[in-house]
């Protein structure tokens, strides 16, 4: 019984995304950011997007392209300090930004991906981060209720994929990718290398194929994926 083939062209994959979609993006800085999928989203120009990503990349990269092109209405993130445009647009009221502590962002995404409604944590008690969140008592401890964070789409960058959508990431390019891959209703993965089924040994799979809906093979990797000149 062969496993389904989910390979797809990049334009066709991104064309499923409509205006107003909630989109999760992988990546922590450059590693793991799906630049080619984002570039295609810029080319197609869907508007009013909610972007969920650890950070807003840097000037001239990834999320910054979407901001520059006026496609983002809302950003849910942990840190935008390396993107002056994102901070300016936030302070000018041009985009709304929800800051989430990094590990809570990861866990809320993981929670959605695991089919759960939420969890209780003590992170951020006594700070702005806890404001407006219900408090919950667990035994003799007090916590805050964190809700699961899902999305319509997840755009993932993988080092290797097979045609069924099993994925493997490289080094610190893993970060949020395996979490968002589980948390969206439709997950699109771009891969540097596409292998036949079995090309990634079963024990070596990071994201199992059932979480992935479409896999796009990247052509030669654009320069933006390379080592950044500072």
């Amino acid at each position, binding site marked *: 019984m062969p496993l389904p083939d989910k390979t797809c062209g990049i334009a066709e994959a991104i064309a499923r995304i409509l205006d107003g979609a909630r989109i999760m993006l992988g990546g922590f800085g450059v590693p793991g950011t799906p630049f080619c999928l984002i570039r295609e989203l810029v080319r197609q120009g869907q508007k009013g997007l909610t972007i969920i990503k650890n950070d807003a990349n840097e000037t001239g990269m990834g999320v910054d392209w979407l901001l520059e092109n006026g496609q983002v209405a809302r950003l849910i993130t942990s840190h935008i300090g390396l993107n002056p445009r994102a901070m300016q647009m936030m302070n000018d009221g041009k985009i709304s930004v929800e800051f989430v502590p990094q590990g809570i962002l*990861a866990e809320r*995404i993981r929670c959605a991906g695991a089919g759960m409604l939420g969890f209780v944590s003590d*992170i951020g008690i006594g*700070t702005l981060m806890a404001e407006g969140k219900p408090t919950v008592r667990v035994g003799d401890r007090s916590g805050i209720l964190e809700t699961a964070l899902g999305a319509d789409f997840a755009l993932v960058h993988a080092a290797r994929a097979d045609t069924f959508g099993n994925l493997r990431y490289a080094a610190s390019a893993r970060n*949020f990718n395996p979490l968002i891959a589980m948390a969206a209703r439709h997950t699109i993965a771009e891969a540097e290398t596409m292998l036949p089924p079995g090309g990634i040994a079963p024990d070596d799979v990071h994201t199992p194929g059932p979480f992935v809906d479409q896999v796009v093979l990247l052509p030669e990797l654009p320069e933006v994926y390379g080592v950044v000149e500072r």
Partner: protein
Amino acid sequence: MLRRAARDIRAGMTVNLGIGLPTQVLQYVPAGLAVCLHSENGIAGVGPVLDRVHADRNLIDAGGAYVSALPGTAYFDSAVSFAIVRSGRLDLTLLGAFEVAANGDLANWIIPGHLTPGAGGAIELAQKARKVAVITTHTDKHGRPKIVAHCTLPLTAPGCVQRIFTDMAVCDVTPDGLRLSELAEGVTVAQVIAATGAPLIVPQAPLPRF
């Protein structure tokens, strides 16, 4: 200050260093010291920084520096990375500060309307590392104290800081208040008091110098 802070990193520890001054402490940690550096983006066992020619495009630390792997390095996703933090596996974190208060309150993630970088992983690091130390210049670029009686900026975490390293002194947060514990070479107690925005407990005995 960097050299003094490096002395608090001891063999056997798992340590997370914040972006900026905290990471610069590394240059004073002896190369042979057995320490596991954790990075929020999913690395335990961060190795030395590499130049551009030797960099691996997939391997950065949370500050964006190209780093290397060591024998025994592990990579993991961001949920696992913060499971390490929240479950108390970090022995020490060194963080930067906009303001730090005498009671250990820390503000280092937002100056509303002006500088709005966001907290990244700092809230969990500040709240959950077993020991939290701040490393900062004693005053800001306008000469105003960064150590204050009460933080005016939104907090990263209340009451989290145990020790403060500055270019003038080492201060410890105690139940009785902020204690002056060590002095930098050439700095007087009076100068530290003048540059500090909170009352300081000054021990009778001569203070160690660094």
